[in-house]
């Protein structure tokens, strides 16, 4: 088992399904809420971290009092942000009393530091959220619907749609053109004469103009 470095941001070993908590949380409501639902191991000297969910991800807990007291909590956040191997999730007690300080804390955490921030009302809410975070991290990434890849779609229907956006080309001319010039690239490089073999002269002219006309030119005549 690796020991944490003196600055507290060194590697820490967290068995699967466990949370390593900082000693100061022993006996707190937050710890009590989690015990029984998840295995909690207390360790000394984890500062600035409050909880380790895994060896790569940790939780920084900002209490109502921290938030009201000023910007002191920011130092801890920066310390974790600067450690290359740790992803910090910041839980903030957003209550009636600390609400007014929340926007500044959010701006600093999410926009300036690029860390994750989640508001909670109480230690009870924090406990269930932390358990949820552990479950999420233990899951196979493919079980996360937002990480699942969308199935590739057939290009044919889209291509018909794209070709129909060319002025003068509708449902009838689009498949005719694509049968003769099978890709958008072929179609864009077709000469007037080649286009006239498939569609009438007027349509051929419009297609050719659409592809070749400089987009900086004057509005088209109606």
């Amino acid at each position, binding site marked *: 088992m690796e020991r944490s470095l003196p600055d507290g941001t060194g590697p820490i070993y967290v068995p699967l399904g466990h949370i390593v908590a900082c000693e100061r949380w022993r006996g707190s409501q937050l710890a009590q809420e989690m015990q029984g639902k998840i295995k909690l191991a207390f360790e000394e000297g984890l500062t600035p971290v409050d909880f380790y969910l895994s060896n790569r991800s940790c939780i920084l807990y900002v209490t109502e009092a921290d938030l009201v007291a000023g910007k002191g909590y920011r130092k801890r956040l920066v310390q974790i942000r600067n450690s290359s191997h740790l992803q910090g999730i910041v839980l903030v007690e957003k209550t009636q009393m600390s609400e007014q300080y929340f926007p500044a804390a959010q701006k600093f955490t*999410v926009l300036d*530091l690029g860390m994750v921030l989640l508001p909670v009302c109480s230690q009870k809410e924090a406990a269930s959220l932390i358990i949820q975070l552990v479950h999420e991290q233990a899951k196979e990434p493919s079980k996360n619907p937002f990480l699942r890849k969308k199935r590739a779609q057939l290009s044919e229907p889209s291509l018909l749609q794209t070709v129909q956006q060319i002025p003068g080309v509708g449902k009838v001319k689009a498949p005719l053109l694509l049968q003769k010039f099978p890709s958008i690239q072929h179609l864009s490089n077709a000469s007037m004469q080649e286009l006239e073999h498939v569609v009438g002269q007027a349509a051929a002219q419009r297609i050719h103009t659409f592809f070749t006309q400089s987009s900086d030119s004057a509005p088209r005549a109606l």
Partner: protein
Amino acid sequence: SVACCSSSRPCLAEPHNSFHLPQERKRTHILVDSREITSGSEVISSLRAIHGLEVEVCPLNGCDYIVSNRMVVERRSKSEMLNINKNKFIDQIQHLQSMFERICMIVEKDRAKPGDTSRMFRRTKSYDSLLTALISAGIRILFSSCPEETAELLKELSLLEQRKNVGIQVPTVVNANSHKWDALQFYLSIPNISYITALNMCHQFPSVKKMVNSSPQELSMCAQVTHQKAEEIHSYIHYSFDLQMLPKP
């Protein structure tokens, strides 16, 4: 302040017009979906009046706000997030993921309705699991207490993106009776293309033919997309159509 999360973006050449002196820097642009006129009128007016942003209302087809060449922002009320139709929401996020490199959600507190004294929001397990799933998929979440604060967050996001050289640089207005308009509609029909990508193509390529015949590198630079997205567009343009593959009506 400290720079935000390490940029994983491949080194794209900057748009040609990004070397303005600070004092003549262009105003920040934000694209807003036309549906937000009804549900987010206070957001739009705050963006314009308080923050002086260039707000363009466009048919964004399911994206609430586009704040840069790569980032979309979805605005949701807290009550919507609590009683969400999960499948519909997943579809929508996947739709956004197919078009954008970065997604941000702003969860906005519901307005207290008159007469509605103390409707407390009970945090549910499904709400927590939704939040954690979004986080582990790399989707950013911001919390707002009112439309005005949402506008402030949108401004901050677009300024942040601008500092990373992915700000919206092209004119966002396209005359409806122009060749540019025709080209825009054509580009928008390419699968998994965002409105801002199509706009960039419109303004950065001298003609549609030029765009169609460009290399993935040129596409990546002019359309301001990742190399992967540029390859995807390139292969669509070169895809050989086969009538047999069309689904039977």
